[in-house]
Each structure stands twice: as structure tokens, then as C-alpha cells.
């Protein structure tokens, strides 16, 4: 079946360094991809999204890269801060499947001061 998965379950970085979180997906027909951040005890919070007709999108301190050839998605966080410590989920959907997001397992990002 279709799945979205993350390469690494945990990532530890030094404050100020850049972080890269990776995600692989299996559905080549996916139209839309999104990254969420989830802090302990809270619901997932939108970070950035990208549609399949793009390969890069930038936000404030975050960049999402999409490589459709190898079905790979990454989230780059510049100048990582302690407040970035959380679990990060990638998710994808196909518009012809009713807008249902399929989530990966998550990567826990830990930022060391």
C-alpha cells in the first residue's frame, strides 16, 4: 500500500546549526506535500507545504525540497533554535483521494544549547 516514511527517527543538532529532516514517499501520484511540527501535548502545527508542480519552496527559516524522481521530500531549518525542538511529520495526499493526508512516523528533533 501507499506509505510515507521518514529515514531517521531522531535528530540532534547544535543550536545555530542547520537541520535537515528527510522523508520518502511511495505514491508517485501524490499532488501535495506538507510538513507539520508537533510539540509535546499539542496538535500538529503547519510549517510549510509544496505542490507537486514545484521542487522548492521557502518560508521563514524553513525550506522544503521535493524530488519527484526519487520520491523524496526534505525539510531544512536554518539556524536551528531550542524552540524548534519537536517531532516533525511529513504528509502527502492525492487530490483524487478526497484530500486525505497520509502521515509518516515522525522525526524527533532535539536542539542542544
Amino acid at each position: 500500500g501507499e506509505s510515507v516514511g521518514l529515514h531517521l527517527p531522531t535528530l540532534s543538532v547544535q543550536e545555530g546549526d542547520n537541520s535537515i529532516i528527510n522523508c520518502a514517499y511511495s505514491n508517485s501520484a501524490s499532488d501535495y506535500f506538507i510538513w507539520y511540527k508537533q510539540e509535546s501535548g499539542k496538535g500538529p502545527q503547519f510549517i510549510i507545504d509544496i505542490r507537486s508542480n514545484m521542487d522548492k519552496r521557502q518560508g521563514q527559516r524553513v525550506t522544503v525540497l521535493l524530488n519527484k524522481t526519487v520520491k523524496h521530500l526534505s525539510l531544512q531549518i536554518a539556524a536551528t533554535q531550542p524552540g524548534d525542538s519537536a517531532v516533525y511529520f511529513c504528509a502527502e495526499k492525492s487530490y483524487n483521494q478526497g484530500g486525505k493526508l497520509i502521515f509518516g512516523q515522525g522525526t524527533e528533533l532535539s536542539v542542544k544549547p
Partner: protein
Amino acid sequence: GAGVSQSPSNKVTEKGKDVELRCDPISGHTALYWYRQSLGQGLEFLIYFQGNSAPDKSGLPSDRFSAERTGGSVSTLTIQRTQQEDSAVYLCASTLQLTDGYTFGSGTRLTVV
């Protein structure tokens, strides 16, 4: 409202009892989703509602689970005869456009003892 509101935030119930979880989506959002998140895991799709269309119930794990959405707004997820494996955080989300991401609530943490 300004965000997705879920109640209660925490629920402890005895095995075998029924529980109802409530979700108030963002006003005007036509699509509403329920997900389940077990400890340290990703988000598992349960059910989604879109306007007046028949709900997509493909993720409900058993017939003990049901959900309804009244008047195109508030939704209730009901779990009958709860089991210990039902213990999880139940997350609700809504969106205006099926081509966009969701806004999540903070979830209901259900503990079955």
C-alpha cells in the same frame, strides 16, 4: 471560531464504557477529519467528512467506532465498549479547501483503564 476546538482535553474511562469526543472545526471549513495518534507514533486516519457527501469511513478500526457531523459543523467521535488498545490521542482537523493542508486541534487524550 479562531481554531479547531476539541473536548474534553483528557478523558479517563473504564474498559467497556462508551465515550464521546467532540470537535468544533474552524467556522466555514467544509472538510473535517479525525485521526488517532498512539504514543510515539504517527497519525492514523480514521474518518473524514466533506460537505454533504457521504463520509469516508475507511480508517475506522472496528465497528465500535463511529462518528457524525451535525449541521456541517460540530463532529462527535463515539467509541463503544472501549478497550485498552483504544488509548491514544484523538486529533480533529479541518480545512476549507481539499487541496490545502489542515488545521489541527490540540486533541483529546483518551486513557482506558
